[in-house]
């Protein structure tokens, strides 16, 4: 701590000063009674830009968008009671996808806690299971320790959300501050175990049919280049989880794209045959593995993860290495033999040729795959691609040529409809030089539709591509496939006029249905600056294929 002159400051002013010192320049939230002291202090900050969301969940996902695009902890603010409960979904989403988030909530004054005071809710208790850690702050003094610690915890090891609940009287309490703590940064990780790495290298060198399985941890760790280099050196066909897309360019010769429930047949077949699976920053999620007992049934497993609790959680590893995947890959690669692995790679190539991902209509921009490809044709790898959740998300995951880590922002673990628009706003705020595309559906967009006005107010360069099939498409698809075509509660009888809705919120709009040259209309809309809605109708009966039925083995794919 460096000596400085003594100042008398309120808890609220201390919070704002600590955020400034932390390097926070943009945050999102909604004020309310119990957080007004912090907002009052924030109004005096010349460094921090506050983005007023229109629902606290939007604020949470705007912060997530910033964090996902940059990898740095981002901040959202909410008041007590409903403000805090509205944040919960965005916090839980950050927990499941390991996103560093610092959520700051106002709380009723300490003396009123436990009295069922107006807008009192047990925010601390509610957030225990959905945060990495949480705090109920007891005094203004404690803020000097808690705020930097919240950032340190959010960023350290496996990243995640941290919540700081601050009673109003703590925000108003004045104390003398003479020294400021250092900003919270990620703790250094212990060096990985060299002996385990040597064993892993030997297993890779001896394997005949190894595969590399990359998860979101590769992106979080900044290890994409190292992972690609390892794959190239050792001749490893590579699959990615939904969270890892972009870690290896999808058109790389060794890439087999996304594995699992909606992976290509060749991808799941290759995994079924491999004799060694090298899992890097992946957690064997059920959407990736299908029936676990039938996942890579012939394979030995090397599992590398920053979180020791992931090792052996779902599948026992023959070698489990706890550590930052970047540090592990740095040590592992030199010990791995360069191999051409012609036999296995030519076999994988033949699987690819025989069972490719089928994307009918890819050349027709009026189809779902064709629209996605047409959007990609208008953009380069600098664009950021966000999605909502549903069929459109899976189609984009399959068809968009993702080539850059952090290019891809999607709600993987929690699968939160409503994620896309606010996350895209956050990404655009964090990296205003990029075009941020948000693929969404007519179901998802309505779940945080109010953030259209936030996007318009901020003038962010967000392009919302609304794939409208007038249904909750994945529900419709599952009812069609697994529930005897008893379509219930998944077809919308009434729909808003999305063009008018977006115009009403201040968006420019394009209805591709009415454009005689959809490619030209797309190119114009995507090259303009500012928030734009691009609407396109999609046939309700289109399905995401192939599909592994929930609970089935990945090799038993339907369709595609």
């Amino acid at each position, binding site marked *: 701590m460096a000596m400085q002159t003594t100042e008398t400051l309120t808890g609220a002013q201390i919070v704002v000063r600590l955020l400034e010192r932390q390097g926070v320049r943009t945050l999102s939230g909604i004020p309310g009674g119990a957080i007004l002291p912090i907002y009052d202090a924030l109004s005096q900050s010349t460094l921090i830009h506050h983005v007023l969301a229109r629902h606290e969940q939007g604020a949470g996902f705007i912060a997530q968008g910033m964090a996902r695009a940059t990898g740095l902890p981002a901040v959202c603010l909410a008041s007590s009671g409903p403000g805090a409960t509205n944040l919960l979904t965005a916090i839980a989403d950050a927990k499941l996808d390991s996103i560093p988030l610092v959520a700051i909530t106002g709380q009723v004054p300490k003396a009123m806690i436990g009295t069922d005071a107006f807008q009192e809710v047990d925010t601390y*208790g509610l957030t*225990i*299971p959905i945060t990495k*850690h949480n705090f109920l702050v007891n005094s203004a003094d404690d803020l000097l320790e808690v705020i930097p610690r919240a950032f340190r915890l959010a960023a350290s090891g496996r990243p995640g959300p941290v919540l700081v609940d601050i009673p109003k009287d703590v925000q108003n309490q004045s104390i003398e501050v003479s020294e400021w703590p250092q900003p919270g940064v990620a703790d250094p990780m212990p060096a990985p175990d060299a002996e385990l790495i040597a064993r892993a290298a030997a297993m890779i060198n001896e394997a005949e049919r190894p595969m590399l399985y990359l998860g979101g941890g590769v992106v979080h760790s900044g290890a994409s280049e190292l992972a690609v280099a390892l794959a190239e050196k050792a001749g490893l066909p590579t699959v990615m989880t939904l969270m890892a897309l972009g870690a290896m360019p999808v058109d790389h010769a060794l890439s087999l794209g996304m594995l699992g429930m909606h992976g290509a047949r060749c991808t799941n077949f290759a995994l079924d045959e491999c004799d060694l699976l090298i899992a890097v920053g992946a957690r064997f999620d059920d959407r990736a593995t299908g029936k676990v007992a039938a996942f890579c049934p012939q394979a030995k497993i090397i599992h590398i993860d920053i979180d020791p609790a992931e090792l052996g959680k779902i599948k026992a590893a023959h070698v489990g290495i706890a550590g930052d995947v970047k540090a592990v890959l740095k040590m592992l690669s030199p010990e791995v033999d360069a191999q051409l692995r012609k036999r296995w790679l030519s076999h994988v190539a033949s699987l690819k040729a025989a069972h490719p991902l089928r994307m009918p209509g890819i050349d027709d921009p009026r189809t779902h795959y064709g629209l996605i490809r047409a959007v990609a044709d208008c953009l380069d790898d600098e664009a950021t691609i966000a999605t909502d959740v549903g069929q459109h998300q899976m189609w984009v995951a399959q068809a968009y040529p993702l080539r850059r880590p952090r290019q891809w922002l999607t709600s993987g673990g929690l699968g939160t409809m409503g994620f896309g628009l606010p996350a895209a706003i956050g990404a655009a705020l964090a990296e205003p030089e990029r075009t941020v595309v948000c693929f969404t559906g007519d179901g998802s967009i309505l779940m945080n539709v109010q953030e259209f006005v936030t996007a318009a107010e901020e003038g962010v360069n967000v392009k919302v591509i609304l794939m409208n099939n007038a249904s909750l498409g994945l529900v419709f698809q599952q009812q069609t496939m697994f529930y005897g075509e008893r379509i219930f509660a998944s077809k919308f009888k009434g729909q808003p006029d999305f063009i008018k809705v977006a115009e009403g919120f201040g968006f420019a709009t394009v209805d591709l249905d009415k454009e005689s040259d959809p490619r030209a209309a797309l190119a114009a809309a995507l090259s303009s600056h500012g928030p734009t809605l691009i609407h396109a109708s999609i046939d309700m009966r289109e399905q995401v294929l192939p599909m592994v039925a929930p609970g089935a083995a990945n090799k038993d794919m339907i369709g595609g």
Partner: protein
Amino acid sequence: MNAISQAENKALARAVLELDVNNHAGVMSHVVSMFSRRAYNVEGILCMPVGNGSTSRVWLMVNEDGRLEQMVKQLEKLEDVLAVRRHGAEHEVFERLAEFFR
């Protein structure tokens, strides 16, 4: 709610966990929510401050279960949990306490 009967419950092997934790409001909530969210019953709980009171020791009696190893790893991740030690059912802490429950 635990779906197994009283008799079945008694037949299960027990394990005793010993945790060193920070002593402040909410720590016990963090610890027990790890179990409750997995519908994993905690059979016995004992907690007292140690030393100057800045930390506490928590004793948990739980059923041996395939999930126990994962539970221990998850507990070790909690910010306020400083150490976790695993003992067999023969550990005397709950045995000696039992006379208060007769």
